[in-house]
């Protein structure tokens, strides 16, 4: 859908008669027509149905209902799992219903692993559940060409990674506590972002949906910011600040010049606001009122300058 903002602006400026706004939006193609509505309803019913059904099954297993024997529970999950895979096979992975069925199969896989752990008390750590789940879903993600499934896979990998650090405290002694978790998830999401953007730039069409890349960029940049803040607050040079600076430079070069994504740049501005005010508070700070005023004005100044810069970049790109 296009032209929504322009038409709304023109209407507000009085260039379009007030009673004609809706028609103008229709003419501009900014409102959904009958085929678009059909597609929307189709996907809403399909994905909401799949998601609620799968979530319901997971909730059911989590309840651990004693009235139902273990064999019946296994049968239930396995039947659903096989049914989802049969649906993928019959419908085909290229069609949207096939993708939804695959998403359902991916969710049932996790339910099955959780049920195994719950029933046999294997002594496995929680991270192993998520790692096994991620490993099982990986081949499907590789063939499905479906960004949502990749995001789901990345979520599983993130959970496995952060739980792993929690478990393996003694073996990964180089970093301390939550900082190790941060480094691991930062590394994971940054590699994912790098690979994703490289493949998208090399011309893989289905990876070019910006919203999914933005989710990964928010995770990667968010963890970079958290690393920098941890470094500043704990007053030790763990490399977090350097990693953040490198991330910011790389993101600027990539998103200002190659990919041109203002969303990530706006996130970068917010990250600068957070990091700079943390530095000021930590290093130049005696607890007095004046310092708070300085930090407050600094936050306002940096964000306003950032807003102004982003607007001028937007203007440049609009030309």
């Amino acid at each position, binding site marked *: 859908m296009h032209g929504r903002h322009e038409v709304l602006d023109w209407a507000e400026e009085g260039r379009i008669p007030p009673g004609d706004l809706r028609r103008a939006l229709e*003419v*501009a193609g*900014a409102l959904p027509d009958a085929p678009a509505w059909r597609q929307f*309803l189709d996907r809403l019913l399909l994905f909401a*149905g799949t998601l609620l059904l799968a979530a319901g099954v997971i909730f059911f297993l*989590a309840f651990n209902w004693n009235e139902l024997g273990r064999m019946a529970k296994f049968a239930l999950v396995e039947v659903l799992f096989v049914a989802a895979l049969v649906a993928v096979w019959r419908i085909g992975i290229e069609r949207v219903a096939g993708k939804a069925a695959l998403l359902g199969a991916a969710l049932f896989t996790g339910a099955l692993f959780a049920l195994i752990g719950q029933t046999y008390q294997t002594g496995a750590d929680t991270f192993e559940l998520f790692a096994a789940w991620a490993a099982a879903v990986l081949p499907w993600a590789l063939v499905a060409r479906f960004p949502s499934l990749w995001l789901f896979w990345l979520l599983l990998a993130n959970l496995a990674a952060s739980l792993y650090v929690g478990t393996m405290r003694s073996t990964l002694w180089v970093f301390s506590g939550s900082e190790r978790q941060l480094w691991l998830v930062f590394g994971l999401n940054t590699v994912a972002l790098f690979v994703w953007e490289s493949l998208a730039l090399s011309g893989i069409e289905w990876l070019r949906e910006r919203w999914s890349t933005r989710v990964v960029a928010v995770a990667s940049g968010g963890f970079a910011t958290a690393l920098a803040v941890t470094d500043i607050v704990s007053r030790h040079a763990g490399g977090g600040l350097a990693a953040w600076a490198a991330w910011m430079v790389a993101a600027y070069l990539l998103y200002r010049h190659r990919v041109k994504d*203002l969303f990530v740049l706006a996130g970068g501005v917010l990250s600068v606001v957070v990091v700079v005010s943390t530095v000021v508070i930590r290093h130049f700070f005696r607890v007095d009122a004046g310092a708070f005023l300085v930090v*407050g004005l600094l936050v306002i100044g940096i964000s*306003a300058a950032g807003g102004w810069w982003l*607007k001028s970049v937007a203007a440049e790109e609009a030309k």
Partner: protein
Amino acid sequence: MSTAETWGRLRQAGLVQGEVPQRDGVRSPWFVRVMLGIAGWFGALFLLLFVGMGMSFIIKNAAAALVVGIVACAVAGALFRKVPENDFAGQFGLAVSMAGQVLILFGIGDAIGKNIAPVALAMAVVQALLFWLLPSYVHRVWAAWSGACALAIALADMGFLAFTPALVLVAFAWVWLKEFDHAKQGSLVRAGGYGLALAAVVIAVMQGDLSIAWILDRPKAPIGGVAGVWIGAALTAATLLWAVVQLLAREDVPLESARGKIALVGAIILAVATLKAPGIGPAVALLVIGFANGNKVLAGLGLITMLGYLSHYYYSLQITLLEKSAVLVCTGIALLAARVALQRYWPEQKEGASHA
């Protein structure tokens, strides 16, 4: 499609005249405004700490807090009006006004006393006034959100907690369904609409479990008891149905047609689920109304809210996991069945491929 092409289409349809208007400024994308809003709030916190530590007499004295708060909001209003294009003045005004509102809250709280409902009601009125008087888009989103939340807190404290989700959802749906009827005040309507959308996320989807219980500390016995809770949920469900019926009327789709029936059946399934999973209806309303108005940001918010609600639902304590799982499984199967009906009675037309 470029701006010139859009203009050309409108001119061809006889909706506009003359050449493409040249724009002097560029609108900030929604995420830049979100960034500014977050940073503004962050800045306001530090300004408040400055006032709290450097001029603590202001916070300790109700009248002083009120006066300084009102002056701060007036300064912000003057900045928004005098230099609307200046980014620095805008951001400074936002932070100063937010800090001023907290001072007004201190002042009102001191003056009225410990009762939550009157203080929250007074704050709702203050936010409504600021919404009208302070012409800044980001500030209006904030004022609409915080005003709606203040009103919900007041109602909850008076025992109407169960009815607040339906109320905020009706307000949200009504504003967005009327979006195109107020062409000249579009920015104002949309700022209010986004504020109400965020309020619906907090109050109707997440059910304010965290915030309201934390603020109220001791929620009063709800009016109507268990029946009241059911009536509240039924009103939320009815709001979803009402919004869908309104949309069908707007799109000229008769209720008796195959399309109308399928849309209505889908809405009824989700409305029934809303009775036991109260966040589903509001999240779907955000998604559907966003799509209907061609607003991707609103639709995206609905989608994220839906996913967030499912994990919130897992932990909410009203019913057992077994009951929740039954609700979700039945709803899921019913929705998939409705999709089969859609494929059967509203087949895809290959030649009329959507341009959307």
